[in-house]
């Protein structure tokens, strides 16, 4: 994959410096023109830690100037995410069983649903657009949470790896969730190349992806990373079933239904692991992380709600 298209002057200068292999070209006082300019720049800087770019020297992953630029963009993103978040009544939460309180929080913050639209009304073009946008994450499914593994106490670690073993195909590369999605894309006549559709991604998709990398790459934010994962899993099983029904209604390829069908059952298990064992044991052993667990969960649900409302509005559907 090559660097994506810049969305403003800040990103354009950054990408030029990255391509030239010379981040000293960067003006340290440069600021993004707008949120989208910032978001694609941060997405590209994070990508250096995943698969990288064919047109960027791999050594730049740990370049001090780029890390400084990344740090400023991350600080803005974290401030924005935190400003949207309102803590639940924590003493109240702490006095109830963690899993009960957490599942209730996820239910209360469940926002606009793309799955419900796909199930009953979406046309093929809308579903294909959604799949292209989902590919930005699904082709690296679970990768952002993998960074968290060495930063956890034993019980949370064991349960995260148990979940990941399933996401990564239980030893069978054909069953890797990212691979199931790639097979689905190909069957739908879309590109299964990693990052192929990032240039199409609106701000909301970039923020979803950046939030996961932000939480995953900072040990300080491990609570948010697990809270995000738990909310993701806890809001996946029923929507996945709706997506299967929508794909079947539109007679779209079985390979894509298979990805979502797998998630109906898999995520019914994963949500139990993620909420009860993983987050439950983490907040028991490190109670100070409780608020961050909820912050991560809220960010996951809120960013999905923002994306859903945006797409439904573009398609002329009421949320």
């Amino acid at each position, binding site marked *: 994959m090559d660097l994506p298209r810049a969305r403003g002057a800040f990103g354009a200068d950054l990408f030029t410096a990255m391509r030239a292999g010379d981040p000293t070209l960067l003006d340290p006082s440069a600021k993004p023109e707008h949120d989208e300019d910032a978001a694609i720049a941060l997405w590209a800087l994070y990508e250096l830690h995943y698969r990288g770019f064919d047109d960027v020297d791999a050594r730049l992953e740990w370049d001090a100037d780029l890390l400084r630029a990344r740090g400023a963009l991350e600080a803005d993103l974290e401030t924005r995410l935190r400003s949207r978040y309102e803590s639940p009544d924590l003493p109240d939460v702490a006095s109830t069983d963690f899993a009960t309180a957490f599942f209730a929080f996820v239910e209360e913050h469940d926002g606009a649903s793309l799955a419900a639209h796909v199930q009953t009304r979406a046309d093929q073009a809308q579903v294909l657009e959604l799949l292209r946008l989902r590919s930005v994450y699904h082709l690296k499914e679970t990768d952002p949470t993998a960074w968290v593994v060495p930063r956890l106490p034993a019980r949370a670690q064991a349960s995260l790896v148990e979940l990941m073993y*399933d996401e990564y195909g239980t030893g069978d590369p054909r069953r890797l969730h990212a691979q199931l999605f790639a097979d689905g894309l190909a069957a739908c006549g879309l590109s299964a190349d990693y990052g192929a559709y990032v240039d199409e991604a609106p701000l909301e998709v970039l923020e979803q992806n950046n939030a996961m990398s932000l939480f995953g790459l900072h040990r300080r934010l491990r609570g948010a990373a697990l809270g995000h994962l738990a909310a993701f899993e806890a809001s996946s*099983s029923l929507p996945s079933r709706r997506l299967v029904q929508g794909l079947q209604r539109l007679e779209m390829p079985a390979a894509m239904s298979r990805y979502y069908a797998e998630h109906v059952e898999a995520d*019914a298990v994963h949500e139990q692991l993620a909420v009860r064992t993983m987050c439950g044991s983490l907040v028991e052993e490190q109670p100070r992380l409780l608020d961050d667990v909820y912050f991560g969960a809220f960010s996951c649900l809120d960013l999905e709600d923002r994306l859903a409302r945006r797409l439904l509005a573009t398609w002329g559907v009421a949320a």
Partner: protein
Amino acid sequence: MLLRGTQVVEDADGVQHTTTRPVSALCRCHRSATKPWCDGTHKLLPDKLRP
């Protein structure tokens, strides 16, 4: 309820089901469409019917 490793579950009709994933969740609300495994349906039930 979570099951780990390969296990065999017998349903009410005496049919045996072998687990297919490293961890499986058993349906306890009796309403799953993929019985004996949980498929999240329990969330659609009123509180008093939830396991």
